[in-house]
């Protein structure tokens, strides 16, 4: 009986859920959604085929059943191997098409997909396929494998709204859903949003005042330019790139000892700040060492391809790990730069995308000629902090040419970089991806379905970069534009930013993505320009208020009829706390630092070997650096970062999740970083000659970045007064709270009022709005 009730409940909930997801594109198309008049292979059929059919009737030759291949037009229309009089697809005639007969059959012995596969087509999917066949079963090349084109700007009714091209695309799509854009956000919200997006830091009060006072039409653009010039811009932009490049401060396996690749990280920050064009930025990272007469800086950039984990576990089989490194580079290249999950072809032909296993190893060949071994040393001293090939960076070089490297001591500094062997290491297809099962030999090449490798190019990483930035390459620009869109708008135009292949999600605004991709190429891959373009749009400048109607029609904000609202990244939570309290030390770059961390984490999880077996917390200025400089020991990454969804830097990561959990609440309430910042800010505000209300307002503006409402001031002032009374009664509690953190208290202070203000400030740090970009 009980069970039945639950089953009923379940049904009820699924119905509710289905109803609510009607308006959501992406992987959740409900079976009730209307069938379009013209069925598109790319947008309607291929997602079904790819998800439900290609595993057995797709590109993977070894797993192909009944000789039938549905991903390829020519083979799909051929006579069936097992039944030469039949055809999988007969244009215009579903009843004669075996595909339709099989998917709509009631007979489970011939039903497709077979029940044993655990895959099932819903009635909408079956109807779509039927209609597609009726309409001629026309195939199209996968959208992301064709060159992007700038289509004419869509005509929109409200021409006044649009501030640039982006808005035309967004508005026309909105109109299809009968949505209207939100009005422009209030200036205070806008400035906080802009400042967080461009620099990762909250605006200062001076900047807020300046922006609020500036009533000229160019005020917004001025603010944009000012923020783009800030050195913090490079840090903010680097943050995403460090995830992509799986940057960390340890080698990553087993004993997980120290690695010194931070000079590479400093190079990344500097490159964004000097606005190195995207093609240069990537070419240097991929092949800086192969440029004729390469400079030290160009070689340093190639550290990108050595950021992968490297084993120091005694007794491993060398070749097993060397192969692993090459695989890591190949997969990172694919996911990060061309947005395809080529890694599936490591063990077999790709099941969904037109990549053969051979093509995987052809791409692999570009990264297979490094002068490296699987294990060069077990844990040891400074000589193990980088692995061959490596460069040494002298203090003279730092003083004269590599000025962006923040090296403060005279110790030897080594960094792992790329460097190829003189003789070519042969590359073989590895059967099942196993290092000890070489098959046929292959030469370097690229997947044909994306763009065949031009034989005039050198078959090395430099040639590969040329291929990547060939204007005919359909993916490079789209992939980066999409990643940047994700960083600014919270989710990519293609939500699966690391996968634009057939299993990836479809773009929500394909014409916009293509327009931006072409525009980006036409303007010299200028990153700052692209950032400015996005933040200048009316789309970006909307308010983030979510009306009930919009929540119902577009809960995921696919159509961007409001500004996205989301919690800021882990590192930025820390930055906001430190910056608003005045504790932030704005030094750029240098070795990563070890701020407060709960005791015992490294120690209990260590083998007891290596310099990282104990966590030696830093002191002084190093306690107050930006989150991106917090030391990442891969096997025990900084817990605060992990709890706020930071990457553990194990592998290339393009999309971070954004969760909302109780552990995050515990951090904001109890992390000494937050408590200390509250104390320090409280002691500063306490001595200002202001009324209580004005002190509250000041703290509020610093932290929440807007003026509080009267009601908010009232609540907080009352809380302050209550706390003041309490602390006077319970002095020892005040003493204890004021002792948290290493930053010294002023010699003289009124501990009761400071402690009371401290509670108010901690409360402000715990507001949802504080750590939300809205």
């Amino acid at each position, binding site marked *: 009986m009980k069970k039945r009730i639950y089953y009923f409940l379940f049904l009820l909930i699924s119905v*509710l859920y289905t109803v609510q997801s009607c308006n959501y594109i992406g992987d959740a198309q409900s079976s009730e959604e209307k069938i379009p008049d013209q069925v598109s292979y790319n947008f309607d059929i291929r997602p079904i085929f790819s998800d439900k059919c290609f595993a057995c009737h797709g590109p993977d030759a070894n797993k192909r059943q009944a000789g039938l291949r549905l991903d390829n037009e020519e083979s799909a229309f051929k006579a069936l191997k097992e039944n030469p009089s039949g055809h999988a697809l007969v244009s215009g005639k579903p009843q004669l098409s075996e595909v339709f007969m099989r998917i709509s059959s009631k007979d489970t012995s011939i039903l497709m997909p077979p029940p044993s596969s655990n895959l099932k087509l819903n009635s909408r999917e079956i109807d779509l396929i039927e209609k597609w066949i009726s309409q001629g079963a026309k195939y199209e090349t996968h959208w992301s494998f064709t060159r992007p084109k700038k289509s004419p700007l869509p005509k929109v009714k409200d021409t006044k709204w649009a501030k640039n091209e982006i808005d035309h695309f967004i508005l026309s799509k909105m109109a299809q859903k009968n949505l209207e854009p939100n009005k422009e956000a209030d200036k205070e919200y806008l400035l906080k949003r802009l400042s967080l997006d461009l620099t990762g830091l909250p605006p200062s009060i001076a900047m807020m005042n300046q922006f609020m006072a500036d009533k000229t039409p160019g005020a917004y653009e001025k603010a944009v330019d000012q923020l783009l010039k800030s050195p913090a811009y490079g840090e903010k932009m680097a943050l995403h790139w460090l995830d992509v490049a799986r940057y960390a401060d340890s080698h990553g396996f087993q004993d997980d000892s120290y690695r010194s690749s931070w000079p590479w990280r400093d190079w990344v920050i500097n490159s964004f700040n000097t606005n190195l064009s995207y093609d240069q930025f990537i070419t240097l990272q991929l092949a800086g060492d192969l440029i004729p007469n390469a400079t030290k800086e160009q070689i340093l950039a190639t550290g990108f391809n050595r950021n992968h984990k490297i084993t120091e576990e005694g007794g491993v089989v060398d070749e097993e790990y060397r192969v692993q490194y090459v695989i890591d580079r190949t997969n990172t290249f694919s996911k990060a730069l061309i947005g395809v999950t080529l890694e599936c072809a490591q063990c077999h032909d790709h099941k969904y995308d037109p990549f053969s296993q051979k093509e995987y190893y052809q791409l692999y060949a570009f990264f297979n000629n490094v002068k490296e071994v699987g294990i060069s040393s077990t844990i040891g001293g400074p000589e193990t902090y980088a692995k061959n090939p490596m460069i040494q960076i002298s203090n003279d070089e730092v003083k004269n040419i590599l000025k962006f490297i923040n090296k403060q001591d005279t110790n030897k500094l080594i960094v792992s970089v790329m460097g190829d062997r003189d003789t070519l290491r042969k590359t073989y297809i590895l059967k099942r991806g196993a290092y000890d099962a070489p098959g046929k030999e292959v030469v370097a090449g690229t997947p044909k379905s994306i763009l065949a490798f031009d034989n005039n190019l050198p078959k090395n990483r430099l040639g590969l970069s040329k291929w990547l930035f060939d204007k005919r390459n359909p993916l490079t620009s789209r992939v980066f534009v999409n990643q940047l869109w994700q960083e600014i708008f919270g989710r990519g135009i293609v939500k699966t930013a690391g996968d634009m292949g057939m299993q990836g999600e479809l773009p929500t605004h394909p014409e916009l993505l293509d327009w931006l991709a072409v525009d980006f190429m036409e303007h010299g891959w200028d990153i700052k320009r692209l950032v400015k373009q996005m933040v200048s749009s009316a789309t970006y400048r909307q308010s983030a208020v979510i009306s009930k109607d919009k929540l119902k029609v577009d809960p995921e904000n696919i159509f961007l009829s409001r500004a996205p609202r989301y919690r800021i990244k882990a590192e930025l939570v820390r930055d906001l706390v430190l910056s608003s309290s005045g504790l932030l030390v704005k030094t750029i770059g240098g070795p990563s630092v070890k701020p407060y961390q*709960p005791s015992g984490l490294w120690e209990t999880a260590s083998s007891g070997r290596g310099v990282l077996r104990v966590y030696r917390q830093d002191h002084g200025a190093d306690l107050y650096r930006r989150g991106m400089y917090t030391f990442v020991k891969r096997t025990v990454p900084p*817990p605060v970062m992990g*709890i706020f969804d930071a990457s553990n830097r194990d592998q290339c990561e393009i999309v971070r999740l954004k*969760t909302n959990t109780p552990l995050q609440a515990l951090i904001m309430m109890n992390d000494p970083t937050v408590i200390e910042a509250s104390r320090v800010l409280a002691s500063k505000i306490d001595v200002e000659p202001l009324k209580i209300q004005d002190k509250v307002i000041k703290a509020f503006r610093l932290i929440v970045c807007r003026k509080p409402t009267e009601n908010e001031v009232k609540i907080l002032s009352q809380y302050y007064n209550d706390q003041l009374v309490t602390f006077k009664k319970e002095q020892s509690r005040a003493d204890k709270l004021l002792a948290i953190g290493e930053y010294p208290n002023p010699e003289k202070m009124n501990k009761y009022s400071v402690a009371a203000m401290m509670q108010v400030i901690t409360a402000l740090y715990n507001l949802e709005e504080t750590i939300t970009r809205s």
Partner: protein
Amino acid sequence: MQKDFLEHGLNSNRRRFLSRLSLGLGSAALGSLLVPDLFSGDSSDSGLAPGIPHFAPKAKRVIYLFQNGAPSQLELFDYKPRLREMMGQDLPSSIRGNQRLTGMTANQTAFPMVGSFANFQQHGESRNWISDLLPYTSKVVDDICVIRSLHTEAINHDPALTFFQTGAQQGNRPSMGSWLSYGLGSENKNLPSFTVLLSRGKGNSQGVYSKLWSSGFLESIHQGVQFSSGDDPVLYLKDPDGMNKYERRKFLDQVSQLNQLSYEQFGDPEISTKIQQYEMAYRMQTAVPEIMDLSKEPDDIIKLYGTDAMTPGTFAANCLLARKLSENGVRFVQLYHQGWDHHGNLPNEIASQAKDVDQASAALITDLKQRGLLDETLVIWGGEFGRTNYSQGKWTADNYGRDHHPRCFSIWMAGGGIKPGISYGETDEFGYNVVKDPVHVHDFQATILNRLGLNHEKLIYKHLGRRYRLTDVSGKVINDILV
């Protein structure tokens, strides 16, 4: 269809999924749970989706006593009298076959076989052979199922551990506990569904690392939460010095009042979720220390686990804690005990290491049984691979070492729908190869999921275009050991 629904909902975004549900159902509590219970069906007070296991589960919870470093099966569970007779003889190459070796013994010119220094006896009604190094385990032999034919693909610690925990040697995949949290949710509103306890043994250690309990591409809510013995058992749980419970409540009321204003302004469901998460955090602050407090355990229980149980952070204390957590509905309690990597000086090290874990491991079985919980709790004991039947380096009859061996090793499982008092699988007389009923790591994982009512081929998560499973692309349930 049910699983489709589940997968779909969880996949798209559990948080949003929940908030959507709550919109549909009015003002049902949302976000007030760490992870909702998708398993027991007892959702009457939360308005959440009832649990949808694939079939009737036998076990509700798992306690996994991971013996990190790889205990030697030859000294503990896999009795090979012939090895003693062949002491010092070179392992025939026909037996070794093409087995790859670690860098530590690959250059050895000979592979002198060594028999166990420890003696074995048959115990219980099952007459199972257990080493004299495990006197307490011997007494519960009729409650456990010893599998002697486990085999794995990795020969080094890091990939082998990762393989056991995530089903793949490389890659950032979810841990087994995260998979269960994802698939089944939590039974307890105030505790995480996947908790981790660490202890360090006496012998040569290999590190464990938080990536082993990572949720990989699943949401971080499914990540293992490490409970430690210090005064802050869960990271950042403890209020700062100078803050008390009363003031914390007051503080939360201010925050929640202000957040509420923000919700009225923005209408973002994330804000209400945030309010609920703060309440949950507040409840955890009470619930967790209560669980962690072993001081109220009666004397007979302490005696059962051994006096070590009074010392926080020991294996014994962690076993007792595991029982309490499990009893309170924590879906997956993962213990790691370091110190089993005996490349040299094995007899000494394994003896003290075995002594360190034997009593408490057996006590856990006895304790669960006397509480009537063993039937619904699956207990697992074992390491990441086995050890070679030949000595690494020089040997004498009472001093030798053993290198890593992936081809065969022993583990035991108990309770939770596993046949008690049996053994499964056999190795050859050399203790080098499996000769009967091999169990691959993926088979083992498939079996665990099966006992919890989950079909390992259906517990899937789509990430970057591929459907991932704990068991990767293989694995079959070992039906012979199921009740």
